[in-house]
């Protein structure tokens, strides 16, 4: 029973990171119907920037803030410079370009920082918390991970739901033609979507790196799990991305915990299994059902 609680809590903590990546993919998908394969690479790069800032200033929070800002800038610049010219052309062009961007960023990180694993500091203590004498399997740092992503997701949800800018983004995502005819500058909305996605990716990178170490490929597997979470939730649904992330995080944590020493090697297989099962019963993801697209 104690084990179950521990696996669940640590699964939630990791799941929130998958959720952050999934959310960033959903933001871009809704605006441009495009999967950004460079999302993980961008997150890795902004985390290196954070590490530099922390080293020079000695302040974790300075690095944290700069990483998020860098994510916003990197997302917007990527959209304006390499994605904008591909809009309206075959979708494969943009997909190949995001893969190219990933290779570029990973190569650049290798040249600038080398390939070795670097440790990345956590915001809070990584010593396990206890309830009485029972270890909970999570630390203050893990709690911070969950709270930070949840706060970001809630802020986004509130922004989407209650502000004019959010309404513009939803209108542009659901029906770009009507949005443009109503005077909404859809191109600008798409850039903002990429910037927000960059911010979420940067957040995920900073939050996950204390447990994974930082190296040029360190976000690859996180990206794959985040992508899986986004597909499970239905690529169109921000709420689905969060639920998909949590589901995947907890399932992978159980697999790693209960299947013994082989468990951690099996996580990718378990993720694939969940994906296959979900898509068999809900081909468009868990949260797709209520939507009416064609009328």
């Amino acid at each position, binding site marked *: 029973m104690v084990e179950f609680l521990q696996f669940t809590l640590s699964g939630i903590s990791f799941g929130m990171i998958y959720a952050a990546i999934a959310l960033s993919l959903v933001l871009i998908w809704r605006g441009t119907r495009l999967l950004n394969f460079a999302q993980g690479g961008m997150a890795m790069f902004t985390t290196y920037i954070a590490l530099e800032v922390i080293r020079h200033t000695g302040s974790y929070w300075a690095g944290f803030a700069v990483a998020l800002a860098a994510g916003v800038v990197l997302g917007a610049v990527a959209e304006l410079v390499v994605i904008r010219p591909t809009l309206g052309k075959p979708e494969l062009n943009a997909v190949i370009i995001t893969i190219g961007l990933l290779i570029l960023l990973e190569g650049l990180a290798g040249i600038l920082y080398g390939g070795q694993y670097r440790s990345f500091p956590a915001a809070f203590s990584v010593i396990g918390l206890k309830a009485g004498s029972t270890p909970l399997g999570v630390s203050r740092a893990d709690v911070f991970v969950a709270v930070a992503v949840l706060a970001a997701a809630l802020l986004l949800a509130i922004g989407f739901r209650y502000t004019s800018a959010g309404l513009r983004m939803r*209108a542009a995502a659901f029906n770009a*033609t*009507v*949005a*443009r*005819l*109503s*005077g909404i500058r*859809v191109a600008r909305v798409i850039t903002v979507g990429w910037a927000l996605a960059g911010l979420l990716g940067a957040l995920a990178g900073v939050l996950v790196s204390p447990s994974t170490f930082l190296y040029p490929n360190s976000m690859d597997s996180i990206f794959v799990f985040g992508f899986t979470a986004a597909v499970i939730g239905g690529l169109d649904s921000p709420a689905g991305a969060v639920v998909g992330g949590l589901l995947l995080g907890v399932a992978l944590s159980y697999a790693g915990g209960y299947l013994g020493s082989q468990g951690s090697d099996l996580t990718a297989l378990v993720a694939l299994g969940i994906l296959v099962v979900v898509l068999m019963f809900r081909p468009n993801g868990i949260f797709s059902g209520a939507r*009416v697209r064609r009328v």
Partner: protein
Amino acid sequence: MSSATGAQGTQGDQSHGSASLEVEDLVAGYGEVVALDRVTITADAATITAVLGANGAGKTTLLRAISGMVRPRSGRVLLDGADRAGRGPEDMARAGIAHVPEGQGVIAELTVEENLRIGMMSWPGIAWRRAERAAALAEAYERFTVLADRRRRLAATLSGGERQMLVIARALVARPRVLLLDEPSLGLAPRVMTQVMDMVVRLSRENGITIVLVEQNARAALAIADRGVVLNLGRVVAAAEARALAADVALRHHYLGF
């Protein structure tokens, strides 16, 4: 900056201004196909112009070229005498042209109220005009009481007639000077169609909006229009008073099928 907002603010304060719309020698098409071949039409301020013709005559393309959805190859689109051809739809909307495309006007995933709020996105300095936004919504609900009852529902739950009302209401919230309507009666029951046509007449007479109406139902369109334009294979083959067109038996038989 402040002077610009001030000038635009006064323009937005009027509920609806009028503007004439002139299209001169407009050429537009898709790839090799020329859909509009030197089309010229004139719509005086606060009048209704019916654009008629068979399928493929170029009616929808004409509206799309006016609203910027299709970039014209040549020709001019004059709004109150100022040429705006070649601008994108965002700019056209901000200049006061509202285009209601055929059958796809509502955003089904948004609520009725959110759809109406989309109509305000062309307002200059919208963020600072909270009271005006509330007033515009109240006005829309007063005119379209059906929508008031359903403001928190998803637009997907509306019937065909209610959707058409929502689309027209949204176009009005934008306070356009020119309203382009593409087949507003398509797929509606006859009684609902009559309501929509009545609404179109009131928009022109009471609000002074210049209306360009594309319709398959030529008889119904000519009954409410001031002028009519008949297109055939991308060219204007007749342009006259609506009454004169309706009385021209040979033309009716040849191009309009009634």
